[in-house]
């Protein structure tokens, strides 16, 4: 009894920890003579186990913010703590190491290496980690593919996979390094409704396992599957809301009428 209490307390402690914490983040791009203020002082916390949607129109600064927390870019001013590490002052190589160890990316256009098998694509982040043996690399990549339901497609090339499957390979790739957060930039932007549901279903499943996910989207339908929304406009956060009851992608997918493909019959 006593022991269980402690465990729950520990769990809660972990849940409430902010894995990403930005304070007054400012990013100014110098375009010739003109200064472009992409971010004008963003402060936000992303908790462990969060499933966050960052929304906003194009030019609102949401992509810049995403690049910033993805360690692809450094802020002009302000502080960014990723897993208690201050990222703002790191060198390029240190940023690369952080991306390698703590971040998983999913892109709108999948960004898989062409003429490279699904498995090899998933292995890519581990290739840049010197501590991982070839065997471990293979095992972890197969596990990640299994987690997105593509274990049987491991040796297929991207051009032999459907869009939804390609995006699932990309998700497996983002998972494989066991990141503290998965950043997905318009992950369903190139997919139809049905495969979008599949992809969101996988994200929800991963989130239920405790993986923190941040999705950048301008699509309210996609955002509806997440737990929390942050809306950007002109480089500022204008709204932050908790979603009381997110939609369940798996259930909706099951409820969808099955398409009968008459050509095959």
């Amino acid at each position: 009894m006593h022991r269980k209490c402690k465990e729950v307390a520990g769990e809660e402690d972990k849940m409430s920890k902010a894995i990403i914490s930005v304070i007054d983040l400012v990013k100014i791009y110098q375009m010739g003579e003109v200064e472009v203020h992409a971010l004008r002082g963003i402060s936000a916390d992303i908790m462990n186990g969060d499933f966050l949607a960052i929304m906003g129109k194009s030019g609102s600064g949401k992509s810049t913010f995403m690049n910033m927390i993805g360690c692809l870019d450094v802020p002009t001013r302000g502080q960014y703590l990723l897993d208690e590490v201050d990222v703002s002052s790191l060198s390029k190589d240190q940023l690369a190491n952080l991306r390698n160890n703590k971040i998983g990316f999913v892109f709108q256009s999948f960004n898989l290496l062409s003429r490279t098998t699904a498995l090899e694509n998933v292995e890519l982040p581990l290739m840049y980690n010197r501590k991982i043996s070839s065997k471990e690399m293979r095992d972890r990549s197969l596990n990640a593919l299994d987690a997105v339901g593509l274990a049987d497609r491991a040796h297929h090339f991207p051009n032999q996979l459907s869009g939804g499957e390609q995006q699932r390979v990309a998700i497996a790739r983002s998972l494989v390094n066991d990141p503290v957060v998965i950043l997905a930039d318009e992950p369903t932007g190139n997919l139809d409704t049905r495969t979008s549901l599949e992809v969101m279903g996988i994200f929800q499943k991963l989130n239920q396992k405790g993986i923190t996910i941040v999705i950048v989207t301008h699509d309210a339908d996609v955002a509806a599957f997440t737990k929390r929304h942050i809306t950007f406009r002109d480089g500022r956060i204008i709204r932050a809301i908790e979603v009381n009851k997110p939609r369940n992608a798996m259930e909706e997918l099951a409820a969808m009428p099955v398409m009968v493909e008459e050509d095959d019959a």
Partner: protein
Amino acid sequence: MKIKNLLIAAIRSLKKNKMRTFLTMLGIIIGVASVIAMLAIGQGSKQSIQAQISTLGTNILIIYPQASSSGGVRMEAGSSQKMTLEDVNAITERCPSVEYITPQVRSSGQLVNGNMNWRTSVYGVYPDYFEIRNLKIMSGNLFTMTDDRSSTKVCIIGQTVITNLFGDYADPVGNYIRINKIPFKIIGTIEKKGQNAFGQDQDDVVIAPFSTVQKRMMAITHIQSMLVSARSEALIPAASQEITDVLKAKHNLGPSEEPDFTIRTQTDIAEAATATSGILTVLLATIASISLLVGGIGIMNIMLVSVTERTREIGIRMSVGARGRDVLLQFLIEALMISLLGGFIGISLGVIVSQLIANILSWPVNITVQSILMSFVFASAIGIFFGWYPARKAARLNPIDALRYE
């Protein structure tokens, strides 16, 4: 990234564009193959010239007196009469690096055997001449120093002389011929030696004891030249120095005075003869190297195209944690692989081509280990040199821009 993974990544991306990789490699293959073949031809011709030079004899030094001059009019080289047998004896006694020595006089003689006659050079030398010049007696015997002391009228003749006086394949040992009307007994024949490096027929000779030719035929008291062999090739310079010292002292010349004789060594002669082929080798190799250089530029060109084409891939790699260094190494290793593999194939091709040249054109070729190593080093240097710029360009890409690149 681990080296193993880097190699795997490089091989994968080279495999993706097999045709392009092969064509790029072709530049290096042709360059390396031509360097190997050109050096093989150059080395081969040099070696065959050196082999011909060595028919002169082993570790030879030739000592000529300087030109004489009377009243300011200088005569031809070797016309001085200051060199005598005393010089020969002094060298024999006081030059430890000298193994064999012989004085030499040469006269022209009209040879007559019955109704056949022939004109050739008659050399007067010591028996040691045969050691120095590597001449071998085919039949009969060599004359001795006793024959020399008594100026015996005996001679040893070469194959060309035999052919002209006795017909092909005759063995004239024991017969008499007349040289300038003096009867000489043939006591031996010389094994065929062929032409020397300068196209002279080395078999067109008559060799007789030194004093016989000097006194009976020429009636002179000086000697025309000396042939010396050093104890080893390494001792040729030492022998040359010793002889210079001894002869200068003998001729009452101070150390700073010009010697009244000239020493030519086998090395000098070989150098002169191989100089042309050396220049030719350098020239051929240079032209071949230029084609290798052009191959290198081909690598750079393709790598630059490849970097632009794969900007997105570079962005993806960077987003999953590749550092600039990893990207740089990846592209550099690709360039290096093209050049090394090309170098390897080029060396094989070069060896094959050289053998074909040797077999079809019957040119002398000699493929040296140095030329293979040099080509290999050169090929990898080209890979690194021409791969560096594109690789650095790739490494410096900004991941955000690279990811967005269409």
